[in-house]
């Protein structure tokens, strides 16, 4: 770790961190990007741990997507994360790609940033001058742009512990198996004792220049019990908060239509899961 941070500082802008390489190597192969120095951090010991500790589920940045998908704790208690991991790319890519790389790449089509938003996660960033902890939703500022400063790496993901009163899911609409999404939505609810939504987390993938928090829909849902009409209205608000653009995956109109339908489904399913204790 020390060595990696030292090299990063030494080579500054010329250096690029590589973890699983599943985003970086395809770019380098197509000569879409090149860097004089690539610093492989995948050998840093202990940075792939997954454990509940204090108030958080802590996940090391080097945990692979496959390790997350197969982790028992995550499968039982952090459904949105479990489901998203199982829908990323294909099993071969998931065996190499890491959670840290999936988030740090800053690709608005990558699936895990939206899940981090829904789960209200925090990120630990480490540099030569120590560590800082930030909210996951302030991490990606624009397409392929993050708040990481030169010489800094993402080391840990901190997810508030899941309680019996919470429930969530990830729904992703794809064109082909193993592909990125047309649109995807992550939802997580915590309910109060009268079955009203105490806290809502909603993150969106592939419908804007960066992953989006649907903040208006969250506040609309908080304090309410979810039924069909509430879910439908919340989904409409979610669509109004999206900013998709037309591309290979579809037109703006098509993407909004897809989002409306999966958002409604995700709200209903998450509420149902939170009610089952």
């Amino acid at each position, binding site marked *: 770790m020390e060595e990696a941070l030292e090299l990063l500082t030494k080579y500054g802008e010329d250096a690029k961190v590589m973890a699983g390489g599943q985003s970086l190597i*395809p770019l380098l*192969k*197509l000569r879409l990007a090149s860097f004089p120095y690539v610093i*492989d951090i995948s050998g840093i010991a202990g940075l792939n741990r997954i454990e509940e500790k204090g108030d958080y589920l802590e996940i090391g940045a080097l945990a692979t997507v496959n390790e997350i998908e197969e982790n028992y704790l995550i499968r039982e208690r952090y459904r949105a994360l479990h489901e998203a991991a199982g829908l990323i790319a294909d*099993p*071969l*890519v998931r065996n190499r790609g890491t959670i840290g790389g999936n988030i740090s790449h800053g690709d608005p089509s990558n699936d895990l940033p939206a899940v981090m938003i829904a789960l209200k996660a925090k990120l630990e960033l480490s540099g030569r001058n120590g560590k800082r902890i930030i909210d996951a939703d302030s991490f990606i500022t624009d397409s392929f742009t993050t708040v990481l400063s030169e010489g800094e790496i993402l080391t840990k993901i901190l997810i508030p512990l899941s309680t019996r009163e919470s429930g969530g899911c990830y729904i992703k609409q794809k064109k082909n198996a193993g592909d990125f999404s047309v649109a995807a939505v992550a939802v997580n609810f915590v309910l109060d004792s009268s079955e009203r939504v105490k806290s809502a987390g909603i993150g969106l993938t592939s419908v804007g220049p960066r992953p989006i928090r649907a903040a208006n829909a969250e506040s609309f849902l908080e304090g309410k019990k979810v039924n069909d009409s509430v879910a439908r209205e919340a989904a409409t608000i979610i669509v109004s908060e999206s900013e998709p653009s037309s591309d290979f995956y579809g037109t703006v109109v098509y993407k909004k239509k897809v989002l409306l339908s999966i958002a409604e489904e995700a709200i209903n399913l998450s509420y149902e899961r939170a009610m089952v204790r």
Partner: protein
Amino acid sequence: MSLVKIKTKINGKEVESEVEPRKLLVHFLREDLGLTGTHVGCDTSNCGACTVLLNGKAVKSCTMLAVQANGKEITTIEGLSKNGELHPIQKAFLEKHGLQCGYCTSGMIMTSFWLLRKNKNPTEEEIRKNLSGNLCRCTGYQSIVESIRYGAELIKEKEEQQEMVVR
């Protein structure tokens, strides 16, 4: 560019080599070691023709640098047969027509090998999900799925025979 020394264990043999840091693992296997059973079918990391096992897990060798294999174990299609005898999954692909042109086949077999290690008795759905990173232009997948099912049976039979011998 200066060369980097790496040590790997490939199909059970220790190998020491010097490679360019930017060389992809698949090129190292094919060009430096002559293991041409591992194919390259695309340049977008989509097709899985290049699948090998890295410390027992199926990965795309075109989406990894050779230097990243330092200190690790790699198994390629050449490493599956034992004493000149095909591995049961290989036999199954032959018998059940799991291939036509054969371009995707070594990758399909490596992914199946990994799957059958984790799950001795996969359902059709599990097989299809696990193959989502391996593309085939020829077969339409049905015969591949059947080959893997049959491969699972052959492996089971072989294990039972071996148990009888031990007893």
